[in-house]
């Protein structure tokens, strides 16, 4: 399976994503934001970080990078595109996924482990995964997902909510919402479910010596789904 990770100026989880993808069997290529063409890929990843220093608005300038036109075309033709953290912020700025990401409710950067409930397994990302709840890691300042009531209705009607913040048993309640996201939303799909944006970092949870291993389940399942 072939993957591509885009490096924007200010990306800082690009290497971590490269390490994770390779660990689980992807042939990964790093792609520079000024490149015009994507290499032939089964999965394109927009990594975390502070693209363009988060200036103007998180993800806003990166969404206009040269490479993004190819990424948008790839997504519109059904290609799998995953944005993690800043990558999620870039995805909402392109309009590939609905909504916006606001400053965290308590106005502070948060770095910690969280639990997320998988809300929809009928897609290339979570199909066949045996877990219902994953322990993943978040590290962000602007992860407070927001959208209009109409958008929310549409998102829910189309089963576009990918994951919600929850307790270790999968209970989705306000105390387990780290950043104020509407309905504890931690990640969402586009309508066709080939584009996924999420705040948690599965690439930081890929070995037992790190904060945990649930990221491994995610990647192992992902590559099997793509085969």
């Amino acid at each position: 399976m072939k993957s591509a990770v885009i490096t924007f100026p200010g990306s800082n989880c690009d290497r971590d994503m490269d390490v994770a993808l390779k660990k689980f069997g992807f042939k990964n290529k790093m792609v520079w934001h000024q490149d015009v063409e994507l290499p032939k890929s089964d999965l394109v990843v927009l990594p975390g970080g502070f693209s363009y220093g988060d200036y103007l608005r998180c993800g806003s300038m990166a969404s206009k990078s040269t490479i993004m036109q190819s990424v948008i075309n790839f997504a519109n033709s059904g290609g799998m595109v995953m944005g993690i953290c800043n990558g999620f912020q870039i995805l909402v700025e392109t309009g590939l996924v609905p909504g916006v990401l606001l400053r965290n409710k308590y106005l502070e950067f948060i770095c910690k482990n969280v639990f997320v409930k998988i809300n929809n397994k009928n897609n290339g990302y979570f199909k066949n995964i045996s877990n219902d709840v994953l322990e993943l890691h978040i590290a962000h300042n602007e992860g407070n997902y927001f959208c209009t009531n109409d958008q929310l209705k549409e998102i829910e009607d189309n089963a576009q909510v990918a994951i919600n913040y929850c307790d270790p048993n999968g209970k989705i309640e306000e105390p387990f919402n780290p950043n104020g996201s509407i309905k504890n939303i931690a990640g969402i799909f586009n309508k066709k479910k080939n584009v996924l944006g999420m705040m948690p970092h599965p690439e930081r949870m890929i070995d037992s010596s790190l904060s945990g291993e649930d990221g491994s389940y995610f990647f192992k399942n992902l590559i099997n789904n793509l085969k």
Partner: protein
Amino acid sequence: MIVNEIIAIDHGLKKDEYKKICELLKRTPNITELGIFSAMWNEHCSYKSSRLHLKKLPTKGKQVIQGPGENAGVVDIGDNDAIVFKIESHNHPSFIEPYQGAATGVGGIMRDVFTMGARPIANLNSIHFGSTQHKKTKNLLRGVVHGIGGYGNCMGVPTIAGQTSFDSSYNGNILVNAMTLGLVKKDKIFYSKAAGLNKPVIYVGSKTGRDGIHGASMASASFDDKIEEKKPTVQVGDPFTEKLLLEACLELMAGDSIIAIQDMGAAGLTSSSIEMASKGNLGIEINLNKVPCRETKMTPYEIMLSESQERMLIVLENGKEEQAKTIFDKWNLDFAIIGKTTKSKKIELYFDSKKVADIPVNTLVENSPMYDRKWKKAKLPKKNKINKNDINNLRIIEVLKKILANPNICSKEWIWQQYDHTVMGDTIQKPGGDSGVVRVHGTNKAVAASVDSSAVYCWAHPLTGGKQVVCESFRNLISVGAKPIAITNCLNFGSPENEENMGEFVECVQGIGEASSYLKFPVVSGNVSFYNQTKDQGIKPTPSIGGVGLINDYTKMITMDFKEVDNVVLVIGKTEGHIDQSLFARVILNEKNGPPPEINLFNEKNNGETLLKLIDDNLIKSAHDISLGGIITALSKMCIKGNKGIKLKKPKYLISEIEYFFAEDQGRYIVEISKKDQKKVLDILNKNAVHYDELGTINENMLFLNEKTKVTIDELKGFNTTWLKQYMSN
């Protein structure tokens, strides 16, 4: 402007120093030259009050590749890998403007590390604030934490450990010390020594603005009522540009075009160019019209003294200019050839085709002032009036609850949760442990680092306090299973012109030297910050020690959380019941007199090395060093982290339970072992003549001494984890 003595004094120079400048130049300096002298000769850059004493520190060792004198120290960790590390202060700017002051402190220390070719892999910090009752404390704490996070998080470097304390002596002068570790291949280390004639001198990074002019001079003076006016001397950081600069520099460093490289830190273009020329015994000629400027009509004086951030000076090989420029263009950074190396051994500056400065390099460096300041030996600690009968009537659990919720003991999660501590995917021990630990990417090795200071001990007895901080750093590394390699120190003191403060400095440095020499734990880099005082009130002497150690097999790393019910818990090291200067004495008894606990370097080394051996033999399940708050505080933290309890029995000593559990005797650790290993462990301890106490066994959820003295771990956790969050939320 014609320079005279009054203008020189306005620049922070002393009358004698101005006289010496005129003698060295054999003429009156012009204003640009005066600015350069004042920047190079201030305390921050010249170490004029400290040099004499710093020379006495041990700086060599088997693993030391580079000691003090470069941008950072370098130690060998085997397999052609080396760790570059240093700690630095940014105290004055952080008090005036906490966000930018702390942020640029972090940015500056990271630049020091990647200037040497190393990719930063971990950040640490040691931050000290005034009393929690003081009106400024909350805002300063919030601003500093946001600033540290804002810069480090954006750079994508994990912040893995730190230390925070509160003491009223910092009410008017907080401390912000930032430390960075970087990883480099031993044969790809870059230095700041220029070499060769007519080599192009290159400026890269951000443009030069008017921010930070005279920052280094500000850092070399005491605060007075007009500090707010000094805001313009605080630099403004841009971590995004620094991230680009990091990647661009490392890309250029992968080739062989760099002769020397130096970041523009304190005193900007002035100190970086002079440093490179001085080390290479060369001259440098710069055309200031070529320097990329952010603002119009900047004068030579402003260009030379600006402390705009995220800038580097490079001496390149001839003919490599285009290749280098391509890299900086790719990263959208300024690149300008601003001068060349010369044989003149002078710093020669041109502006609008006129020579605006002409100074022999040695007058700025070798001939800079050095003072043997007068100092007073510290007074012996006063006897205190602790009445043993009174303290024995106190109830242990009530005291423990107060101590666990004390600002200097309580959980600092509110702080470190705002720092990205997991980016780079190699953090295997996060903040809240004895040391932070990161793997050496792609290997079985891991590097541990901690930062410590004990201002109260140093204040009560500077010599003992100096030794203690080094020992604590040693212990924190050993507690995670790392072999201590070397330290970096950040020496925060009051005015060197005050004999008592200078005495504290001299004796602390002596203590640091004695301990690091005995423990073979040399000092490889550091920084001195004097004038930490408001008006004539100095801070408590606060040397911060950053320690670095190596774990050869990261699967052997130890954490402090209790692991398994029925395991046996031991105290390694002897408990004499030293209560003076303990947190217990200060918080519970309100008693501030008495000497700090003594340091026995033999025991320190023997206990530590024996524990390392036990860890290496896989006999230790968890470990934690005993520091502030004594045995029971350390135990409580191990219980809270592991979500387990302990059934305790106090060993049959002559001292009382209170003394046993709250004393702060040094050289001690708590360890957890399994029952089946007990004999083996005790044999090794006996064979090495290490004193130990059997303290108890681990249970489900209760700290239990007897039916009257017990508490659930959940309750202890509540006391430990809520104080700081509540304090910051209202």
